[in-house]
């Protein structure tokens, strides 16, 4: 008991041996180095290059103006001022515009019917504008629709005021009727509101998760191939050595990845000029359980991998599944419960939300406590499972060896 409390069971020295052995294994293996270090550092720059332009600008739109009235021209004039769209072609018929849309020359069509001006002039009329959006990308649709809607609301208010004034109301009263409660809108957190600012933080966390995952699977597969008995330390009782091996190996991954995570999650957002309002010391503290949970999660999975490369072949599509299951690009409220509960077992889910809350939204570590605690629980849970799996595989291996001897 006394020994237990003096941490004798940890046998720091032996843990140290495992730790340095694992570091050597990593740095002598070009395949693992490519994944751990090259991929981790190159990927963020590639994604930043792809999502360089934050805003979707100047989407070409075709105009079909059958009313040919000052009113429709005024609408178009206002709309052309919006940065999102560019009125690139004026067509005489819908067929012509559809042709352009089909050939992807334009991504939207705005159509004013013949009676547009007449309906507006009629004090009881209602005018309609038709908007056709290319759905090949949601971002086209969003930009075209929202900017047209903005112009529409503005024009509508002016028309309403005119009509109320015709009815003999004074302008002040008409305004209070039309817009009894004017509103201001503020987009919080990301000043540009661009796609990159939203996606890149989630991708940075995913890169850490997946490179660690594939790297550890590759190391596990290699050990299996070379028949190195990672899980047996000579002359010791297995139940003890399991702990030391797991801790020693994890420590080796941890020091590499803590540095990488500090670069990716603290330095790169500043370099890339994506939102970085989190406190660095809080972020660094948050990184610890995230890396640990990912390491032990990967160690558990790597037990099933038999070859160096098969892990990558088998698990490559997990990157997409983890990304979507976490509920970032598709909101978590809209994900079926079964998938949401499953996602709680993946460290990425908590890591990504926690990082976005802290770095993009400026939450403190205390505000992010749910994610922080969940990651510690996952780290602890996967640590125990990793130890048990190591113990069982070691036991199985020795049994096979004894069977062979007989």
């Amino acid at each position, binding site marked *: 008991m006394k020994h237990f409390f003096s941490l004798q069971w940890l046998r720091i020295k032996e843990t140290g041996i495992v730790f340095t052995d694992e570091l050597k294994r990593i740095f002598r293996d070009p395949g693992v180095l490519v994944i751990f270090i090259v991929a981790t550092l190159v990927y963020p720059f590639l994604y930043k290059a792809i999502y360089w332009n934050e805003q979707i600008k100047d989407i070409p739109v075709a105009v079909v103006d059958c009313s040919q009235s000052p009113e429709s021209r005024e609408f178009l004039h206002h709309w052309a001022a919006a940065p999102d769209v560019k009125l690139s072609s004026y067509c005489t018929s819908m067929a012509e515009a559809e042709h352009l849309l089909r050939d992807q020359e334009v991504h939207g069509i705005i159509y004013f019917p013949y009676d547009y001006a007449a309906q507006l002039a009629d004090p009881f009329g209602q005018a309609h504008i038709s908007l056709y959006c290319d759905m090949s990308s949601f971002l086209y649709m969003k930009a075209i629709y929202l900017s047209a809607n903005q112009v529409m609301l503005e024009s509508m208010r002016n028309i309403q005021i005119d009509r109320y004034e015709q009815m003999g109301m004074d302008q002040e009263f008409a*305004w209070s009727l039309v817009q009894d409660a004017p509103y201001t809108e503020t987009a919080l957190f990301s000043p540009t509101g661009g796609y990159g600012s939203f996606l890149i933080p989630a991708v940075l966390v995913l890169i850490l998760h997946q490179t660690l995952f594939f790297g550890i699977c590759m190391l596990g597969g290699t050990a299996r191939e070379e028949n190195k008995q990672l899980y047996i330390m000579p002359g010791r009782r297995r139940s003890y050595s399991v702990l030391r091996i797991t801790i020693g190996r994890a420590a080796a991954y941890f020091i590499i990845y803590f540095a990488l995570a500090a670069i990716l999650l603290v330095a790169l957002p500043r370099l890339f000029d994506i939102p970085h309002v989190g406190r660095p010391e809080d972020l660094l503290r948050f990184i610890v359980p995230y890396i640990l949970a990912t390491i032990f999660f990967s160690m558990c999975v790597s037990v099933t991998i038999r070859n160096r490369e098969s892990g990558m072949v088998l698990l490559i599509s997990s990157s997409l599944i983890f990304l979507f299951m976490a509920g970032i690009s598709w909101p978590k409220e809209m994900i079926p419960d079964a998938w949401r509960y499953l996602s709680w077992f993946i460290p990425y889910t908590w890591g990504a939300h926690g990082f976005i809350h802290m770095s993009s939204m400026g939450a403190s570590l205390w505000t992010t406590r749910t994610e922080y605690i969940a990651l510690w629980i996952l780290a602890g849970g996967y640590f125990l499972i990793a130890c048990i799996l190591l113990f069982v595989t070691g036991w199985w291996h020795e049994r096979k060896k004894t069977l062979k001897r007989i």
Partner: protein
Amino acid sequence: MNYLTNIWHVTKRELKQMFARPLYMFASVGVMLLSTFFFLTLMRGGAAEKMPVAVVDKDQTSISRRLCHEMQATPSVDIRLITSSFSEAREAMQQGEIYGILVLPENFYDNLVAFKRPQVDFYVTNAYTVGGNTAYKQLLTMVNLTSGAFQREVLRKKGMSDDVIMHRIQPLTIEAHMIANPWGNYSVYLVSTILPGILGLICLMLTIFAIGYELKMQTSREWLHTAGNNYMVAMIGKLIPYTFVYLILGVACHIILFRFAGFPVYGSHVRLMFALLLFIFAMESMGVFLIGCLPTLRDAISIGALYAMLGFSLSGFTYPASNMLPAVQALCYLEPLRHYYLIYVNEALMGAPTINSLTPALALCGFMLLSITTAPRLHKALVYQNYPLK
């Protein structure tokens, strides 16, 4: 004749290996089944309708409270939190519980009935795009609902009929027609490119693995020997069983997406399915090309994974390629998935004539020819086995 028998020998040898290791079936059929199931069930709703929002009620009158509860009862609105403190709502947003905040100012109702036009403030999170947008639309609806109701009340008192009032309140409307996806279904637009993309990813990785494994286990000479020392025979014989599996998966993927899941196809099913098969061949060919460039399994696998994963972003189906930097736009065309996506847009969404899909289809054929360029190098590697094994 001799060639054909040799091809058959190689294929037989390959079939044995294929069934000896569970990896091949797991990584192709298993992964595809799982991904299809996952992505089709993930967004069953398809459209994000309502997101949780908060109302900060600074007015704190019985009427503002009643207003909050009325809004809460509206089915299209999900008010998760009603509070008087903005910082509480902000913290809930930072915890990812809500996506938007509506602030009712002090004396809101008094000012409203006195026609003093009190100002309402919205705050929407930008850190989650879909959630934030949906919350924004929802907050707008909430304000317009209350505002419209108020206008209607005043006009009714003036003795107008409801029909006339409607046109007063909304003299101008925009009808949005979302071409080929009238429901604004996110799932249609995402899954119809992501699933073929995953299939392509599988083709690429497994092709690299199947060839690279021979190099790694130094069985490549025996393989060539079975093929009568003919490189083409060896390659064709080896790839036949895999190609067969991929093509079945491709046809199944098409049928599941566009028949069972009911994703719209305005053009021709045959042409779209043909494009998917071309895409599969292109990815397989890229696999042969990559292992030919880097005849070491681990390098080819790592580079292949990098290349195929970038395909999802570079295909431009989420973030349009036309908005990328010019240099990056050029890179897009190096990804077969980009060309498949272009054909998909033409065929499924636009119902465009075949001629529009010709260029991307030819590009896919071009990828198929690419594998020939590294044939001499790969052939040498198979014979001499002069590359690192690990």
